[in-house]
């Protein structure tokens, strides 16, 4: 069976998707729903290729890292498959770890221009009506470190909120029983004693 091939280009980066349409869903001949292979070519860098299960995590890594780069001062992304760290504001260090044993990780250094080319290639793939890729869960798009921070915050609130509400309700409840000293009442009582 002849496989379909689709390419997405952006300046110095190109992404090639190879796969088949899902005929059980009555899809067109030129559609790709079952991706068998993908290749990411960056000019002057080694070819990056892999299986379908690697494409999603790598795309997520690039998207999360680009978001962190814009928002954070020290952007870092770490996962089983890929690590991306910033050497400085202009150069990014990518470590691609092979799923096969005894294969050394591939280390790449790319600049901001190649990073934006890569992101734009992934955008083209996401927006292409001819390729259907499973969208990953939003929670997976939050890096581990941030997720840890979020859990920490939630735990802190869970720890702090119940005693705070308890103290507030105690104050509100006990305030209804407060006895206010009234000097006029005392004077009246003294006058009564004297008259007696």
């Amino acid at each position, binding site marked *: 069976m002849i496989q379909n091939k689709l390419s997405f280009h952006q300046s110095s980066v190109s992404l090639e998707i190879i796969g088949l349409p899902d005929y059980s869903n009555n899809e067109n001949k030129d559609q790709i729903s079952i991706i068998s292979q993908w290749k990411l070519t960056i000019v002057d860098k080694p070819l990056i290729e892999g299986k379908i299960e690697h494409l999603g995590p790598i795309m997520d890594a690039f998207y999360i890292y680009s978001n962190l780069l814009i928002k954070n001062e020290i952007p870092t992304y770490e996962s089983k498959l890929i690590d991306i760290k910033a050497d400085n504001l*202009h150069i990014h260090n990518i470590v691609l770890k092979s799923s096969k044993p005894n294969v050394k990780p591939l280390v790449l250094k790319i600049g901001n221009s190649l990073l934006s080319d890569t992101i734009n290639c992934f955008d083209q793939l996401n927006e292409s009506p001819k390729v259907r890729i499973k969208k990953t869960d939003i929670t997976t798009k939050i890096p581990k470190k941030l997720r840890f921070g979020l859990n920490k915050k939630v735990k802190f609130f869970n720890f702090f909120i119940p005693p705070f509400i308890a103290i507030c309700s105690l104050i509100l409840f006990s305030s209804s029983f407060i006895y206010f000293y009234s000097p006029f009442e005392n004077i009246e009582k003294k006058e009564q004693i004297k008259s007696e």
Partner: protein
Amino acid sequence: MTIWKLRNNNPLRKSYVTNNIKLNEFDALIRITVEMSKYLYPYIREILKSKEVIEENSVIWNDFNKRFIELIKERFNIDSMRVKKLLNQAENDETIIKSLLILSFCISTQGYQKLKSFLYDF
């Protein structure tokens, strides 16, 4: 004319008006920015690339930075601390690079949504 009026809402400008921008006007400005960055992507990319080689004193970057500072001095209120920070060549690199990166990430068809979410997160 409307765009010219809208840009006067920028509080960093020498003379500005405090009219609140309506949501549809905000959306329109984002759409214009995305379309402009699509058109200017090759230039944005070259400016970003020019900073990647540290040893080279890039002509492209120097020209861009010079023009950027000229425009700010011409139109912005230079007494403001925020504008002073933008004019400081030692400090403005990060702001410029991050702004250019945001523009370069938003050139796709969905770029409008991306830029909008970036701006809301700021």
